[in-house]
């Protein structure tokens, strides 16, 4: 899959047009500009999934003020670019997180806070949390700490912005490429109970969909 930033078809058309008119470089410059703007306007969906959510208010309010870097909180996943998974995920939360992530528009990114999503963390022997988040969802940036200080969270933002600016391969592209792999893992650990299932035909629901 092409890593085009305007969506694949439009991207190809634009490129052709630029090349026809002898402006091959313009396309690159445009893409760079788009990347820069994208890196400076990251909208974060307001979903505190774990302990790390307690460091979100200081990060987003006046003391550390992530807004000066263009990182702003929004209410719904439809408007968001980034979801911060702030800590351990219980199986019940993972179902909601997968749904929230799939509702987000591309390009979308995932940042994890704390040790728990990396290798289980404090709850490594707990029966209700997942241990390796990158089996189920593609992670762009992991920040360690229990919990990470606002400084560490901002470091995570800086790293994410750098990656966007350099046009490195983002998590959502991996998710599209290895969709079967991620779905298989999700089904294995969630026992097939992903409600509503990803294949749900929303326009021809036969039995009442369970929300």
């Amino acid at each position: 899959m092409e890593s085009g930033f305007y969506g694949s078809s439009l991207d190809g058309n634009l490129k052709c047009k630029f090349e026809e008119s002898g402006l091959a470089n313009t396309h690159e410059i445009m893409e760079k500009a788009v990347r820069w703007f994208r890196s400076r306007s990251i909208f974060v969906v307001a979903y505190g999934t774990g302990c790390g959510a307690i460091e979100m208010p200081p990060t987003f309010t006046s003391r550390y003020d992530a807004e000066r870097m263009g990182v702003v909180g929004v209410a719904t996943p439809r408007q968001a670019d980034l979801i911060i998974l702030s800590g351990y995920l219980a199986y019940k939360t993972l179902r909601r997180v997968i749904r929230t992530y799939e509702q987000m528009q591309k390009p979308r990114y995932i940042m994890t806070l704390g040790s728990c999503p990396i290798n289980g963390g404090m709850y490594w022997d707990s029966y209700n949390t997942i241990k390796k988040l990158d089996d189920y969802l593609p992670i762009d940036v992991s920040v360690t700490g229990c919990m990470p200080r606002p400084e560490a969270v901002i470091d995570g933002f800086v790293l994410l912005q750098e990656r966007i600016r350099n046009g490195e391969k983002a998590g959502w592209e991996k998710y599209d490429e290895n969709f079967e792999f991620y779905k298989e893992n999700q089904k294995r650990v969630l026992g097939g109970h992903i409600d509503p299932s990803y294949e749900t035909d929303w326009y021809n629901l036969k039995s009442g969909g369970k929300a």
Partner: protein
Amino acid sequence: MAIDVKGVLSPLSAIGTLFEHPRTLTYPEVKKDIPIGYRGFHINNLETCVGCASCEEICMNDAIDMIHPDREYNVKNTSGCIPRIDYGRCCWCSLCTDVCPPGSLKLDNICTHADCDPDNFLYMPKNHKNIGEEAS
């Protein structure tokens, strides 16, 4: 209905804060001083580490592995091993530093690490003698 005059006017006093000094820390440029006792990342003085694995034993998160260092630092090291910490497990409770018999394992006040690959969180404690001091 009576109008609550005080309730309407008193919130306007917030305008006065326009003239106060801003409290924001512009972090990546200006860094806050983190006190020395802060429980940040691990440092280990390899010249005094005796490889006793007390830290491995007390860690309830099973975060510490004993591995061979690249060369021998301390001839008195009983097992020839030094601790390596999995930052996908650690909770910075500092029990490992409390039980360390020679006091070689300590917690630094550096505490930020972000990486794009979740496999990169096995942390080798830096070989520092004291907090904030480079080893020779």
